[in-house]
């Protein structure tokens, strides 16, 4: 590997982004563009008994008003399926405006199309809808007496109950120390700065182009094509820059298809931008939930039993739960284990992926409980983790593809200064502030798509290369990292390579979700680049005029565009010399990566890390302020240390938000979110950001993918909230078993 791989290079698109030259899906100026605005249901449950569009229809500039009475029926009922798998990826098994039933507040009941967005917004307020409202369930407490155990969750991919190991009831019964605690979680919303937006354009040949803000251009293409009854060949998706997502754009919701239907109706390009308020009920959310943890341990803290049960609210038509049990189930060497999901049906859109889906809540529960156990038996919390460390995946007995967790603990403890910690709660004071420290483990599954991942590399005779794959860039730094992977694979300087993504015309890559984007894309890019390099080397050794004629390809290396013998570097020639001599304008290769099977071919595949936090709690006012965070992670290979650092830091700040600020609050009477704005849904601001130290342990991993990339997208959030809550306990002696932790918990 060349030094370019992993180097902390500047973002290739940084200048375009900060100068505004980068165009986002909602910024395209198209001739004759019209604007669609959705009207959401004001009640959470019932039927539409009357809908009067007369005033709206005659308002200035209005082109059409569509309701369930006249919107065309979609060609297929959507089926919820995670986009990681490369197929259609509908966010929920329901499409709005097909009948008069209201399943949740905010469900689109009408769509106004006008010549300007302001006129469309105004006309949308003139649509009069009358409802026959029926009783609703919008809070877990309201549905608690009617929960059920789903056969499957997660689009039918995972069982509703995890495989049981041994006899956990006996394990708990016989344990010297038992813990049975329940943790509650507020609903969370993703809240990317760019709201979801689609611009739909039909051409003269009835082909559709969608400029869509999405984590997966192909997912949009296949999903919309299915709903419109079109072959995918007739639907093209363009998505170069996306203004953040955090899961909101991981699956495909109704708005791209609605934009396409509106554009077809008015015979003009149509842009549909969701308002900030609509973002709260149009793209899923992290469901309100509670998790019960049972721990059984011996006096030394060695776990004999782990029981983990989750109860959460889902929609009326999908069995969705974020997979909170997945990481905790393999975290420690518990001899026995049981865990399952229970759901309550509610008047809500189907919940979805949100920042560290599953692990962010599941690991809060487990790591809070482990801290409680540490105090119960009087063992240092870090020592307790080490005593329960497992060198194999406890759910299967298989080895890990790579781990590095012990190194993360050690490095994190050094960076933080953990050793010598006075375990007594409430013992440190700094003026009005009580100061405490806490730690937690982190684990996040290494997922991979099921379908082949493809990229194409083309070198021109001047020695420059373009490498292409159909991904969007939603802030991760993917364009930069993939340029580095391509430069490394081709043996070219970084500035001679351009990586291009952003449309479904390019080789297919699954949606970048579940921290799997860099693993999937880098694999395809690496194989395309090295494939092209090998092709050129092969051509050189076969070329009687080449200095490398008849050389062993295995003995040839490429540096800065020059192929030469490893043992005799003066013997060689450049790509340019080879191509020009042979009158070749370019050379191209396709890279195809067939991902590792989900079971890792006999390996457990997780990314691990360790989190440490220092907090100060105002003894009188109950304010919690985080003073320091240290996170050390073992994400396999890091492709760009700077963008990886940014992603890990962002993840830790998500965790800070989850711990102390983020809550979408449901009005129990209206069945609507009561704080659907960025003024009322609080996320951390710069002034909340503490001193953050991040380090990585680069563990080689030959199992997960060709470059051993495990991903840095979400591991940063996992465990942060638990470390903060454990630090709050250390500071105050108070164990807060819900998130977020706010002033009223600590008065």
């Amino acid at each position, binding site marked *: 590997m060349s030094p370019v791989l992993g180097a902390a290079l500047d973002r290739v698109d940084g200048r375009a982004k900060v100068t505004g030259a980068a165009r986002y899906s909602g910024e395209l100026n198209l001739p004759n563009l019209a604007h669609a605005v959705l009207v959401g249901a004001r009640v959470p449950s019932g039927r539409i008994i009357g809908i009067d569009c007369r005033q709206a229809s005659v308002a200035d500039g209005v082109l059409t008003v569509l309701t369930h009475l006249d919107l065309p029926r979609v060609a297929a009922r959507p089926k919820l399926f995670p986009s990681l798998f490369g197929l259609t990826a509908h966010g929920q098994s329901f499409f709005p405006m097909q009948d008069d039933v209201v399943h949740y507040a905010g469900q689109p009941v009408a769509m106004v199309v006008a010549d300007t967005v302001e006129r469309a*917004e105004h006309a949308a307020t003139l649509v009069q809808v009358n409802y026959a409202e029926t009783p609703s369930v919008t809070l877990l407490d309201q549905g608690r007496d009617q929960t059920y155990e789903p056969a499957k969750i997660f689009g039918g991919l995972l069982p509703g109950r995890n495989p049981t190991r041994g006899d956990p009831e006996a394990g708990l019964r016989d344990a010297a120390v038992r813990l049975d605690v329940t943790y509650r979680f507020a609903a969370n919303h993703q809240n990317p700065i760019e709201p979801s937006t689609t611009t739909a354009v039909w051409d003269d040949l009835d082909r559709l182009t969608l400029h869509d803000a999405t984590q997966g251009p192909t997912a949009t293409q296949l999903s919309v094509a299915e709903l419109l009854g079109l072959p995918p060949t007739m639907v093209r998706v363009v998505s170069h820059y996306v203004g953040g997502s955090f899961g909101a754009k991981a699956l495909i919701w109704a708005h791209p298809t609605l934009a396409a239907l509106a554009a077809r109706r008015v015979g003009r390009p149509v842009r549909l931008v969701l308002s900030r308020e609509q973002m709260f009920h149009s793209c899923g959310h992290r469901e309100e939930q509670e998790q019960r943890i049972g721990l059984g341990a011996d006096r030394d803290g060695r776990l004999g039993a782990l029981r983990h049960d989750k109860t959460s609210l889902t929609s009326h038509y999908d069995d969705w739960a974020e997979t909170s049990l997945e990481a905790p189930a393999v975290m420690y060497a518990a001899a026995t284990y049981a865990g399952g999901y229970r759901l309550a049906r509610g008047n809500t859109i189907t919940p979805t992926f949100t920042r560290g889906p599953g692990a962010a809540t599941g690991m809060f529960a487990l790591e809070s409980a482990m801290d409680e156990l540490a105090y119960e038996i009087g063992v240092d919390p870090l020592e307790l983790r080490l005593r329960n460390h497992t060198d194999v995946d406890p759910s299967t007995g298989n080895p890990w593809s790579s781990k590095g967790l012990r190194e993360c603990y050690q490095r994190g403890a050094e960076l933080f200064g953990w050793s010598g910690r006075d375990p007594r709660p409430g013992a440190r004071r700094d003026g009005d502030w009580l100061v405490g420290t806490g730690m937690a483990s982190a684990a996040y599954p290494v997922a991979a798509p099921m379908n082949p991942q493809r990229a194409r590399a083309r070198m021109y005779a001047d020695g420059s290369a373009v490498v292409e794959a159909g991904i969007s860039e939603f802030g991760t730094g993917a364009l930069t990292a993939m340029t580095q992977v391509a430069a490394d694979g081709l043996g070219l300087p970084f500035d001679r390579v351009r990586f291009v993504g952003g449309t479904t015309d390019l080789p297919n890559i699954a949606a970048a979700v579940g921290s799997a984007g860099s693993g999937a894309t880098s694999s395809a890019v690496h194989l395309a680049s090295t494939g092209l390099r090998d092709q050129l080397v092969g051509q050189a050794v076969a070329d009687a005029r080449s200095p490398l004629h008849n050389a062993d390809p295995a003995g040839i290396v490429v540096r800065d565009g020059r192929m030469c013998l490893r043992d005799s570097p003066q013997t060689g020639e450049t790509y340019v010399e080879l191509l020009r001599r042979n009158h070749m304008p370019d050379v191209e290769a396709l890279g195809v990566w067939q991902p590792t099977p989900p079971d890792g071919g006999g390996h457990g595949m997780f990314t691990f890390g360790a989190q440490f936090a220092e907090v100060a709690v105002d003894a009188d*006012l109950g*304010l919690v302020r985080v003073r320091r965070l240290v996170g050390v992670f073992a994400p396999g290979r890091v492709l760009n240390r700077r963008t990886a650092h940014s992603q890990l830091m962002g993840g830790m700040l998500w965790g800070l938000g989850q711990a*102390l*600020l983020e809550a979408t609050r449901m009005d*129990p009477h*209206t069945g609507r979110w009561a704080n659907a704005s960025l003024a009322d849904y609080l996320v951390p601001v710069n*002034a909340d950001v503490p001193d953050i130290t991040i380090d990585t342990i680069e563990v080689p991993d030959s199992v997960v993918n060709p470059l051993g990339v495990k991903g840095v997208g979400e591991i940063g959030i996992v465990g942060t909230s638990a470390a903060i809550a454990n630090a709050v306990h250390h500071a105050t002696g108070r164990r807060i078993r819900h998130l977020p932790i706010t002033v009223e918990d600590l008065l």
Partner: protein
Amino acid sequence: MRPVSYSRVADVATAIGTVAADPDSTFLAGGTTEVDLQRIHVARSKRLVDINDLPLRQVEELPGGGVRIGAVARMSDVAQALPVRRRFPMVSEALLLGASPQLRNMASIGGNLMQRTRCGYFRDVAAPCNKREPGTGCAAMTGVNRGHAVLGTSEYCIATHPSDLAVALVALDAVVLTQGPAGHRQIPADDFYPMPGETPDREHPVAHGELVVAVEIPPLPMASTSNYLKVRDRESYEFALASAAVAVSLDAGVVTDVRLALGGVATKPWRARRAESVLVGAPATVESFRAAADAELADAVSHGMNAYKIELGRRTIVRALRTVTGDARMVSDDGNPP
């Protein structure tokens, strides 16, 4: 957006005349709240009269130690103005703890005083709200009311007044100067904000076409060491859960004069007169401060999620008084730090 007309005026008389002549019009200053409310259809003016060019931006020292602040002066400029920082630091602090730098660079002093509540139900036109639509009820009473008031509430409204600046002005007995078709008026800041009572839609005494032109803060020597304490979930860019503006004069450890007002816990910028009366003549001890806080919150009423605000309000008062009187002297009877 609904059709809205817009004009820009350069002198006060034209501004007043233009708005007074059109019942569907309103003044537009920084627009940091007004435009939002227009967009979500809570404010429904059809004509916006832009007053940013009016010559009302000065911050002037008044003879005797007071300050006069023009109504179109920006929050950020006023916060940095030397007379304000020297004579009334609580005003400067209240301004700097409000909103964000970008908003403070646009938002005007008059607009700050006239800003509407952040109650989510007030801002949601589909929800019942006696303040927005009299007689429809109050969804906040049994709804999500974690941010709502515990002082000055009525069975019609529990919305919190959002301004930090107004809390400081009420503590300082500032006077709001207006000019309208009927002439000039001087309205004490405390009277500028009525209690909601049965008419929460009546938020101030300013008539249609009447313009806030300035605020005058009268001299108060002890205010030169005043401060503003703001308690909130996040460190910046958020409204107060509880706040206190406080100035104290001590003589040999005894409170001789005090000004105390609360924000975040009341339906209006809340002058804490009960607490003030407990404090005057009392030793500047934590015990006195607690007694004052208990007296002030004695009649507080909560509605579920905001129950914590009663205790938080008390503690905010105690902390603000401790801070302004100097922690070093503050040792409670048992000898422990408070």
